């Protein structure tokens, strides 16, 4: 048995004594402070389960709701940003461009925690190029793909993540195309936090979300999220029955936030601990697989094998902290650019005179 002492960044967390344990978090906020408007999705939609997990993760991690910016494109999945964190500003933009919008927003206010919720159509079809470039830049954002293998909002056409051989509702049409694996592409683009999960596995989703919040750069979580209305039938590999029957976690995931003054005891033979920039830890307890998420080529092999053999592997697929986040690369002032006073964004008249001299 090995032990690790979890560092506490006392500066951010309010005094422990003030908390109502269980009911409120380190900011003394209750779960309901993290809720949003009522969902208008179909009852049973996988996306709603993810919304609940988001609420839980932000609550447990203890982020001020108004310190969050929520962005999305268009789709059933995109609507969900209205269903959590009512106190955060939200932006439901246009189809496929959320990744780029979020990059702009993050630069405008780097203090805000950015969460982007997308669909498989929004990300892997129309948004693919912009998504990959956002990943390449390592824009600090928790980027969720609520992956149902179809275009829910336009009534169930196959998306680019539909597995080969998937059958369309009502029968007949079979998808002949190779699916796009957003996790594999994210790794190719240098993403340092890549995960796959299942909306029906809230425990894992919440742990992954918290890990993503602690990660400094782009975190991509591709969550299979069944569309109960158009893609929950036999012949779909994105249905509840299929996902439940086939989910094969790579490891048992735990998350220990930086502010928890506890010692984590773990067996280094069965558990790996991944340390995040803010001091939080992700614990990965071995299950059937012998898997090391810091091994890039193993990760890509695993994803490819899973795709070819239509395995449904979940968990933290890849982890790497080496690339600096976008806003650090840019060497910005620490304050939000959005609210810099006029004096800091307009040089004096003398500067103008000096410049104009050059044109005389």
């Amino acid at each position, binding site marked *: 048995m090995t032990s690790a002492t979890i560092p506490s960044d006392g500066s951010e967390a309010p005094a422990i004594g003030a908390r109502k344990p269980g009911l409120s978090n380190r900011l003394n906020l209750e779960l309901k402070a993290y809720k949003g408007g009522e969902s208008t999705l179909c009852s049973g939609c996988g996306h709603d389960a993810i919304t609940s997990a988001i609420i839980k993760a932000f609550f447990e991690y203890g982020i001020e709701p108004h310190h969050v910016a929520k962005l999305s494109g268009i789709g059933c999945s995109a609507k969900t940003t209205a269903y959590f964190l009512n106190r*955060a500003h939200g932006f439901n933009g246009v189809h496929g461009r959320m990744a*780029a919008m979020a990059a702009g927003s993050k*630069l405008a206010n780097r203090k805000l925690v950015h969460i982007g919720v997308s669909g498989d159509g929004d990300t892997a079809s129309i948004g693919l190029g*912009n998504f990959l470039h956002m990943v390449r830049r390592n824009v600090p954002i928790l980027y969720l793909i609520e992956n149902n293998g179809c275009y829910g909002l336009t009534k169930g056409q196959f998306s680019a993540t539909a597995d080969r051989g998937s059958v369309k509702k009502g029968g007949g049409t079979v998808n002949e195309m190779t699916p796009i694996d957003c996790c594999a592409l994210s790794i190719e683009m240098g993403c340092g936090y890549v995960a796959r999960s299942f909306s029906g596995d809230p425990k894992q989703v919440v742990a992954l979300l918290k890990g993503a919040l602690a990660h400094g750069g782009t975190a991509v979580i591709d969550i299979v999220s069944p569309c109960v209305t158009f893609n929950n039938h036999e012949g779909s590999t994105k249905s509840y029955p299929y996902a439940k029957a086939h989910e094969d976690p790579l490891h048992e995931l735990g998350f220990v936030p930086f502010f928890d003054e506890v010692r984590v005891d773990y067996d280094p033979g069965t558990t790996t601990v991944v340390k995040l920039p803010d001091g939080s830890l992700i614990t990965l307890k071995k299950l059937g697989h012998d898997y090391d998420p810091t091994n890039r080529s193993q990760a890509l092999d695993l994803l490819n094998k899973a795709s070819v053999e239509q395995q449904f592997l979940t968990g933290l697929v890849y982890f790497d902290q080496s690339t600096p986040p976008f806003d650090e690369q840019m060497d910005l002032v620490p304050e*939000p650019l959005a609210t810099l006073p006029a004096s800091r964004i307009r040089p004096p008249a003398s500067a103008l005179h000096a410049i104009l001299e050059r044109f*005389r």
Partner: protein
Amino acid sequence: MSIAMEPRAHRGNLGVEASATPVVNDLVVTVATSNGTGSQSANLILMRAIFGMGIPVSGKNMFPSNIQGLPTWFTVRANASGWTARRREADVLVAMNVESIAEDIASLRSGAILVITKSLASYVTRGDLKVFVVPFDELVVPVCKDARLRKMVVNILYVGVLAHLLDIEMDEVKNAIGRQFAKKGSAAKLNTDAAIAGFDWAREHLPRQNEFTLRRANLTEGKIIIEGNQAAGLGLMFGGITVLAWYPITPSSSLCEACIDYLEEYRADPETGKATYAVIQAEDELASIAMVIGAGWAGARAATATAGPGISLMSEIAGLAYFAEIPAVIIDVQRMGPSTGLPTRTCQGDIWKAYQLSHGDCKHPMLLPGNMAECFEFAAESLNLAERLQTLVFVMTDLDLGMNSWMSAPFEPLTKPIDRGKVLSDEDLARVGEFARYKDIDGDGICYRTLPGSSHPNSAYFTRGTGHTEAATYSEKPADWAGNLDRLTRKFDTARKLVPKPVIKMTAGATVAIIAFGSSDPAVEEARAILAAEEGTKTDYLRLRGLPIGSEVFEFINTHQIVYVVEQNRDAQCASILRLECPDRAPLIRSILHYNGLPIDARSIVEGILAGEKRSKPS
């Protein structure tokens, strides 16, 4: 044109003027070379030298859409009256390029001066030109030891030759060379030597000409020469831009690149050296405009610059900015379209398109700079206006303004303070209590917004491109939808008062009225002078500087009979906007159109007006 002294109308292209006394300080020199050979520096030196002699100049570069080896033309116009528009025909042609030599010679007016490199001399079959053959390829050898550099150095030789022929002061040539190669002493030396060699050779070998001369004047005192893209880049920097997202495209790239240079130099935090701005070279224009509105939503003063193809790609998000009311600025440095078109030729062909960019009912305010100072000011002001109006604002310049060299008075420091518009801070909210994002409290169609990150419990709202209520909740209700669209119309009407007012020049006894905008201004002013001088026709002139039009424009149109709208596109795009704004006057709004890729010239306007006036007269 405040520099107009001894107003002297355009001489016309009426063949040889066999005058004993030369024309002073009024000529057009065109240099025909091949691009990528470094002739651009030589041409700038030529222009600068004349400018240094106190004579107003302009430089227009007609370059191809490739990087090396295709024909390119550079025209320097020197004109004591300050007429700097393109003139159709050159007085002097320097012919260096075999590719274009035949058409170059054919294009000359009778009596023009032709300075031609020896190897091309055999192409001259016309007898009505004053031909000066110069063995440039031989002259360059002793001057430049490095054979690889000769292709470039040869250009500076013609500057020397022209200095002799046209009486350009060699000291000014040397000054200009020093400027051009300020950072490279050896290059300065090499080029100075070459210029002198050219000058000396010409003095010895070439006969004099008595058509033209350039004489020192004092008409450029204190002036600067600048390109509109530099001016606009500077404007954005002083305007307080905080996020610039862009994708390279001619002719807007150099605007962004200039802005980046200024930002790096002047917008690092004085204490920490950290950036008070962010620049992203995006992966495409869909991304650059998406970044801009993402940033604008979160409170940045954000802008992008692009050209036609980028404008098309930005269409969808332009509608989002309009409808979700997000501040954003697009500077459209217009080039010749449609499609990829002529990327290195000028046009005003996106006016109508940008004005109502995106599907569905939407309209965008636009600023129309017509000179260098306005490129600077309007770029800065666009950031204010976008935040004030909470919408997408266009700044419409073009390749002629953006990439050619324009003389200007130095810019005045910006007088308008940075305006963040109707933003409610936490303190404001604590005071007013209520907040409904899309409620028209002030009756001007502009509502209040809060910025993401605000902590007041009422501050958060949800932004969407779908139907919404005043409280920013989702709505498909017919009344909510129509009400919101009507408010946006109201806001657009508010914009009429906020965009720059037109510049109006009334002349006693005027019989003709002209409306123009942007880079057409110098040609219009020159055309007015010609009409007055040659035809005795006096003109009133309104230079449009912003859309939607305000009361001054309505009044101008309503109080004139026929109005000629001059613009550089085929489909009368601006005239169309005016006709629709003033349907009662639509039949009286006529168009003068120019759309061959070259900057408009005064003669085209004069001819257009004379033809129009003829049509009006009872026959």
